[in-house]
C-alpha cells in the first residue's frame, strides 16, 4: 500500500512540556491502513505495560484513514487509550466532523502524552497546536456551554470539530464520554475520563487541505457509483428515515429488548419510545456527519416549562438512537418520552456514556428493590422503574458522588456489585455495561470476546436474529467462526475509517475499487489478512494487560431471562468463547 503525504503525518503533543512535533510514519499507514490499525500500533508503542489509565503514561490516540475526506461515509475517528473503566483496551469511535477535520488539518493520527499542570484546551490546525488556558471552562456545569463558548471564541466554523468533556470526565467517572459537535460521542470505555485525568478539557481541530488522487477520472467515477448506491438503494433507508431507533419495536416483538435491568426482554411501553413514535411526535431535525448523505442523526424536540413561571418555556434538541433509548427507556422502565429525553439531556450536560449510565441506574434500582442498598446509600433518591425525576437526580449524583455508593457506581456496575452484591444482575461484559440487545447467545458472546466489549465488534445480535429466522442453530465452533470473521473484516472498515452503517455498501470489492484511484492497490485476501492481524494485535494488548477469555464473568441474569433463542446456556457460551480464543 502507498500512502498520501498528509495521512502519514502523526502529530505528537506533549501536555507536560506544552510542545508538539510531527513525525512522518509512512510504514505505519502502509502496514496498518489507518484508524484502528494504526491506533493499536501507536498504543503498543506508547502505552507501557501496567500503565495507570489515569496516569501521565496513558496516551490518548486518535487516527483517521485514507478514505476520509475522499469518499462518503468515511467519516469516523478512532480513539484509543487504556480504559479507566475496564483497565484494559479502550477504543471508541465517533463521527461528526471529527475525522474530516483531523484529516484536512493534515494529520493521519494524533498522540497526546502526559498531563497538563492546569486545565487546557488545544487548537489543532495545519500550523500545529496552540495550547489554551481552559481553567475558566473547568468545572462548568454544562457541556453545552463549553461547546458554545469555544464555538464563539475559535475560528473555523464549518471546517472544524469541537470535542469536549463534561464534569463526569473531570471528576473521574470511569465512563465519561467525549462529546463532539454536541450530538456525537466517543461514548464508551471512558475516553472522557482519560482527558479529565490529563487536564484536557477540549480539542478544536480545523482544516481544509486538498487531497489529490492518483487517478482523477477513476476517482470521480467510483465516487459517483458509491454515492448512487448510498442515496438510491434501500441499503441506507432505515438509518435515513427512523434512524437506529427503528430497532426498538422489532426487538421488543422478538423479546430481545432489555427491560428493567433485563428482568424482562419485552417492555410494555416500547410503543411510546419507539423510533416511529419519536419520529411522528418529537423529531425536530435530522442531520448528518461531515461528508455523509444519509443523515442518521435524529434530534428530538424537548419542550420544558419553568416551574412557577407561567408560559415560560425553553425548547431544545436532544439526540436519540437505539442504544440511548434502550439505556434510558426500556432498561429503566421509562415510557414517558419527555422524561426520557430530559434524562438523556442531563447525561449530555454531564458528559456521561449514556449506555453505561442507564445500565448503572437500572442496576441501582434493582438493588434498592432487593434492599441490598438503602436510601442512605442513594442519598435519598428513590430509584423506581419509570421515575424519570429520580434518574435525572441520580445521574447528577454519579458525577458529584455524595456517598460511597455513588463513588462505587461511578466506576460501573462490575465494580459496584463487587462491593454491594447483586453480581447476578450486574450487566457488564468484560467490565463494560451491556448494549441494547438480548437476542441470544451470539450477542452476549460478542460483548465478551469483542475487542472493545461492544455490540459493534462482531454484531452477535445480527447472527442471533439470522439463527432465529432460519431455525438452524450453530455449533459453538460455527458461532465463534461467524463472529470472528465479522470482527476481522470490521477491523478493515474501521481502519479505512468507514462508518459501520455503510458496511453493506462498502463490501470488499467496493473498498478495493475505491482505494485504486488513490494509488493504493490491494486485494481482498490482503485486506482480510490485515484485518486478522489488527485483531490479534488488539488482543495481544489485552492479554498483556491481564485480559483472559477464561475468566470472563457471565452475569446470571442473561441466562435467566428468556431470549428469542430460548434460555441462554452458559456452557454453550463458554464453549463458543473457547473456540473463539483458539481461532483468534
Amino acid at each position, binding site marked *: 500500500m502507498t500512502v498520501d503525504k498528509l495521512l502519514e503525518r502523526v502529530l505528537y503533543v506533549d501536555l507536560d512540556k506544552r510542545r508538539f512535533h510531527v513525525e512522518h510514519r509512512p510504514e505505519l499507514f502502509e502496514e496498518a491502513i489507518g484508524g484502528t490499525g494504526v491506533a493499536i500500533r501507536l498504543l503498543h508503542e506508547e502505552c507501557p505495560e501496567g500503565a495507570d489509565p489515569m496516569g501521565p503514561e496513558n496516551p490518548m490516540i486518535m487516527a483517521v484513514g485514507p478514505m476520509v475526506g475522499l469518499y462518503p461515509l468515511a467519516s469516523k475517528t478512532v480513539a484509543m487509550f487504556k480504559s479507566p473503566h475496564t483497565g484494559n483496551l479502550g477504543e471508541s469511535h465517533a463521527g461528526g466532523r471529527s475525522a474530516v477535520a483531523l484529516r484536512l488539518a493534515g494529520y493521519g493520527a494524533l498522540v497526546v502524552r502526559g498531563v497538563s499542570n492546569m486545565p487546557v484546551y488545544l487548537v489543532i490546525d495545519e500550523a500545529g497546536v496552540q495550547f489554551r488556558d481552559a481553567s475558566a471552562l473547568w468545572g462548568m456545569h454544562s457541556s453545552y456551554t463549553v461547546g458554545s463558548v469555544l464555538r464563539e471564541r475559535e475560528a473555523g466554523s464549518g471546517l472544524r470539530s469541537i470535542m469536549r468533556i463534561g464534569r463526569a470526565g473531570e471528576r473521574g467517572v470511569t465512563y465519561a464520554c467525549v462529546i463532539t459537535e454536541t*450530538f456525537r460521542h466517543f461514548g464508551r470505555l471512558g475516553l472522557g475520563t482519560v482527558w479529565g485525568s490529563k487536564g484536557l478539557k477540549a480539542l478544536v481541530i480545523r482544516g481544509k*487541505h*486538498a487531497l489529490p488522487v492518483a487517478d482523477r477520472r477513476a476517482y470521480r467515477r467510483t465516487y459517483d457509483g458509491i454515492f448512487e448506491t448510498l442515496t438510491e438503494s434501500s441499503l441506507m433507508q432505515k438509518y435515513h428515515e427512523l434512524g437506529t431507533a427503528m430497532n426498538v419495536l422489532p426487538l421488543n416483538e422478538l423479546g430481545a429488548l432489555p427491560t428493567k435491568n433485563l428482568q424482562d426482554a419485552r417492555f410494555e411501553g416500547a410503543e411510546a419510545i419507539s423510533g416511529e413514535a419519536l419520529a411522528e411526535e418529537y423529531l425536530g431535525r435530522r*442531520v448528518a456527519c461531515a461528508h455523509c448523505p444519509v443523515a442518521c442523526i435524529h434530534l428530538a424536540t424537548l419542550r420544558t416549562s419553568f416551574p412557577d413561571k407561567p408560559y415560560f418555556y425553553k425548547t431544545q434538541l436532544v439526540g436519540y438512537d437505539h442504544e440511548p433509548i434502550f439505556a434510558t427507556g426500556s432498561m429503566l422502565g421509562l415510557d414517558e418520552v419527555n422524561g426520557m429525553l430530559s434524562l438523556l439531556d442531563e447525561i449530555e450536560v454531564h458528559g456521561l456514556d449514556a449506555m453505561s449510565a442507564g445500565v448503572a441506574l437500572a442496576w441501582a434500582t434493582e438493588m434498592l428493590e432487593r434492599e441490598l442498598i438503602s436510601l442512605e446509600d442513594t442519598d435519598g433518591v428513590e430509584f423506581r422503574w419509570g421515575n424519570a425525576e429520580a434518574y435525572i437526580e441520580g445521574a447528577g449524583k454519579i458525577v458529584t458522588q455524595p456517598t460511597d455508593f455513588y463513588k462505587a457506581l461511578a466506576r460501573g456496575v462490575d465494580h459496584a456489585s463487587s462491593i454491594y452484591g447483586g453480581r447476578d444482575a450486574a450487566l457488564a461484559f468484560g467490565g463494560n455495561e451491556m448494549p441494547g440487545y438480548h437476542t441470544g447467545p451470539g450477542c452476549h458472546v460478542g460483548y465478551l470476546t469483542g475487542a472493545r466489549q461492544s455490540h459493534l465488534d462482531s454484531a452477535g445480535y445480527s447472527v442471533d436474529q439470522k439463527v432465529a429466522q432460519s431455525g438452524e442453530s450453530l455449533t459453538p465452533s460455527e458461532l465463534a467462526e461467524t463472529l470472528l470473521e465479522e470482527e476481522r473484516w470490521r477491523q478493515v472498515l474501521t481502519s479505512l475509517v468507514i462508518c459501520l452503517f455503510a458496511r453493506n455498501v462498502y463490501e470488499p470489492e467496493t473498498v478495493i475499487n475505491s482505494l485504486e484511484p488513490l494509488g493504493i492497490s490491494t486485494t481482498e485476501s490482503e485486506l482480510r489478512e490485515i484485518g486478522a492481524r489488527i485483531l490479534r494485535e488488539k488482543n495481544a494488548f489485552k492479554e498483556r494487560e491481564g485480559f483472559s477469555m477464561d475468566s470472563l464473568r457471565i452475569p446470571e441474569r442473561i441466562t435467566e431471562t428468556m431470549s428469542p433463542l430460548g434460555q441462554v446456556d452458559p456452557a454453550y457460551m463458554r464453549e463458543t468463547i473457547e473456540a473463539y480464543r483458539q481461532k483468534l
Partner: protein
Amino acid sequence: MFACARRFAEGGLAKSCIHVQSAGGIDKGFVVIVCRACPDPPCARVCPTDALLPREGGGVKLDIEECIGCGNCVEACPFGAILWDGEQNKPRVCVYCGYCAPHCPYGVLALEELEEAPHDRG
C-alpha cells in the same frame, strides 16, 4: 462542499466554493454560503484590476491572471460567498457549473435558469 472540490477531481475542501456551517450550533441548523448571483455584484465593483467581472446569466467570472490577490472582493461580499484559496492566494467563487446540485440528496441545492434576478428571492 466536497462535490465542489471534486470538480477538480480531488478530495478535501481546499478548492470548494461552497461553505456550509451551523447557524450557531448544530441544533440551530445549517447555513449554505454560496454566490447569490447579485445583479450588480459588489465584489466585481471593488476589483482594482477587473479580474472579477459580472458573468452573463448571473454570478461573476474570475480572470486568475489579472487577479493580484488583494482580497477586496472577500470584504465586499455581504454573504461571505467569496472564499479564499490559501494555497494560490486567490479568491474562490462559484462559477455556476451545477456540479454540486445532483450531489445534494435533499434538494437544498439546485441549478436553475431564472427569468429575473434572484436577489428578491429569500
